[in-house]
């Protein structure tokens, strides 16, 4: 059992970062979409994320927390190498978070300014996260290829988040905003597909380690469900949005559901590419792991607490289920 602890923690970290992307992805996406709504729609867009964004953001803290708890060596290496994008992301998240609260409370004339800050913060955080993901996949390489690849992912991640944002709005909104969200989803779908495809092709090109893992026999066959289901999921979304009279047939969560499928598959593919390393080519999960005593202490806590967290997260989503209503502090 003890030998598996580092892998379990790596899985937990991957899971919480995946949950982060799925959940805070829609917050950040809506932040970037905000300028395209009119004033009423903007208020509704904010209302659609109001009760959730704070807890959504906590998943990245937890992910980085596990990195720190379970892999202190890697935590130092990754975060000090990614110093600049991390700082940019943090500034973005700070701006996004405070703008959310100030826009409803500050002097009404300043609301437009806070909206802009909200959008800029979301965009900055998203791009910085893309940059971090890119450098991480290349094993923190700082050469030209590495930078180019990071740049590519920096462009890719916003389209995914935009898509998640639009899909979440389809779940939470009605009327004109719903129609707009549908339009945004259609606009974002193709760029998202293109960038995801590009990234999938570029990843094995920049990393020979990853290429060797994927293009071997019979590995390729066993792994084929990941790309195949992804393509099927993407094709379904394409068909729904462009060829169906009523794209969602009152099942307004459908698009968001398919996006979750794509995110989960991408995460699985990524996990397969990276493991057993924690930083590709630099250190393995086992090498970076903290001492067993530390891991056990956190393990029991996590085993007891995480299910509780999931349960009350679901409870809160149920409390606020259905179409969003205007946010009221009363």
């Amino acid at each position: 059992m003890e030998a598996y602890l580092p892998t379990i923690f790596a899985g937990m970290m991957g899971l919480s970062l995946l949950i982060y992307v799925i959940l805070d992805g829609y917050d950040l996406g809506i932040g970037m979409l905000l300028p395209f709504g009119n004033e009423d729609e903007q208020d509704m867009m904010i209302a659609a994320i109001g009760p959730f964004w704070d807890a959504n953001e906590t998943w990245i803290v937890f992910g980085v927390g596990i990195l720190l708890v379970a892999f202190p060596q890697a935590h130092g290496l990754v975060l000090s190498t990614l110093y600049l994008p991390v700082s940019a992301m943090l500034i973005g998240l700070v701006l996004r978070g405070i703008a959310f609260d100030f826009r409803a409370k500050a002097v009404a004339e300043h609301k437009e300014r806070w909206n802009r800050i909200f959008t800029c913060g979301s965009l900055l955080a998203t791009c910085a996260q893309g940059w971090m993901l890119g450098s991480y996949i290349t094993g923190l390489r700082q050469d030209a290829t590495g930078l180019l690849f990071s740049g590519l992912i920096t462009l890719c991640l916003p389209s995914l988040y935009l898509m998640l944002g639009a899909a979440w709005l389809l779940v939470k909104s009605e009327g004109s905003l719903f129609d707009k969200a549908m339009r945004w989803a259609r606009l974002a779908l193709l760029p998202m597909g293109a960038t995801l495809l590009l990234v999938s092709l570029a990843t094995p090109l920049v990393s020979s380690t990853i290429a060797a893992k994927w293009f071997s026999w019979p590995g390729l066959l066993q792994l084929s469900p990941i790309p195949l289901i992804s393509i099927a999921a993407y094709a379904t979304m394409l068909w729904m949005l462009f060829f169906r009279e009523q794209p969602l047939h009152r099942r307004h969560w459908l698009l968001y559901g398919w996006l979750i499928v794509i995110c989960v598959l991408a995460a699985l593919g990524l996990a397969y590419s990276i493991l057993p390393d924690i930083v590709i080519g630099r250190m393995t999960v086992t090498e970076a792991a903290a001492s067993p005593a530390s891991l056990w202490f956190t393990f029991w806590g996590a085993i007891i607490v995480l299910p509780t967290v999931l349960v009350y997260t679901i409870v809160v989503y149920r409390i606020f289920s259905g179409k969003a209503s205007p946010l009221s502090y009363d």
Partner: protein
Amino acid sequence: MDLDPVLLARAQFAANISFHILFPAITIGLAWLLVYFRVRYTRTRNQDWDQAYQFWVKIFALCFAIGVVSGITMSFQFGTNWPGFMNHAGNIAGPLLGYEILTAFFLEATFLGVMLFGKDRVSHRMHLLACTLVAIGTSLSAFWILALSAWMHTPAGYVIEDGILDVESWWAIIFNPSFPYRLTHMLLASVLTASFLIIGVSAWRLRRGTDATISLLVLRTGVLIAMIAAPAQVIVGDLHGLNTLEHQPAKIAAMEAIWETGDSVPLVLFALPDEQSRSNRFALEIPYGASLILHHDPHATLQGLNEFEGEHPPVAIVFWSFRIMVGTGILMVTFAWWAGWQLLVRRRQPSPALLTMASWMTFSGWVAVLAGWYVTEIGRQPWLVQGVLKTSDMVADHEASMVLGTFVAYLALYAFVLVSFIATLRYMSLSKPRTQTAELRDKSAQMDELPRPPEDS
């Protein structure tokens, strides 16, 4: 320009953590005050308590959001600025921070949504539960963070193998010798920060005649709590000082600017400690004072800084921060008792003088909290973990220009947020109570309804 990377990394970390602590210092205490308002409303069904809650929960939400986002910054900066700390002490620091996220961060962040926006969607009892869970979450958060902070001052329960610290006993690590004192000191500090904030803001409102009934109710509540918490803090602070004397004598020597070991040590009230000549200039002293305070015996012996030459913290800043903290504390006790005498014992209406004084003291909690943290954290230098790890060995190897660049960016951001926060706090306090929705759907109607205070341009 030659910049010391250690100093730069410390300055950046200090700026972030100083900015961050301002908001938890409010929310830890304010969360319980809000629970109190809710409970009073539940018991009495007096609308005033409900109104008080409505008003303060919005300010709570604002403080909470700023606290959360700046807290996220902290969790990353352990790695970006102090990778050495994680490499050497990660086995101990990691799980403590991990438990903070697991038990506290998720709890407060998730139920905050229900607390803020769920009043119409859940039962009254469920809402009260959500408020309580948020309050428990904020205090639990303090529990874990203080456990780590205290452990860095009085490390216990660990073994060292090849320079890496490993766990021997979690119980000893968490309940390390200075932990109970630090936790109590910080929780009381937060209660005081929150009560002086509600006292001050209510005083602003009363001076303008905004929402007079509720403002007076909140003012009296704040004064009552401060009357109890402020003297309690003096006692806890004294005990904490004695604990520090036992474990970190160099810090005490710096706090009191005592250079030479000796008995019957005077209390230095005012001085300019000079590290070049290793003496105090312009010292104003009370004979036997320091011995009396620290050992409760006027002839007791105290260790001086010269015994720790090269291994003691910078003296002047610790000495002065300590005086600022104690001075603010004395002011708080005096004000709380004076106001309590006027408002609660003699049952008078607050006089203009009292309201002015209260307004001035709105952010006194912040001053004391920051000064106190500077005393204790700078007082730990040159150690990161007292006696085990040196700060200068733990720093990341970044280019000074990059650290400086992000440092300036953070400072600009924090200055902006702080100014916005105080401006918004004033705006919210001095405009008529907004019982409407947060979203300003009917903006023009709202504008007519809400005359803005004259000083807002």
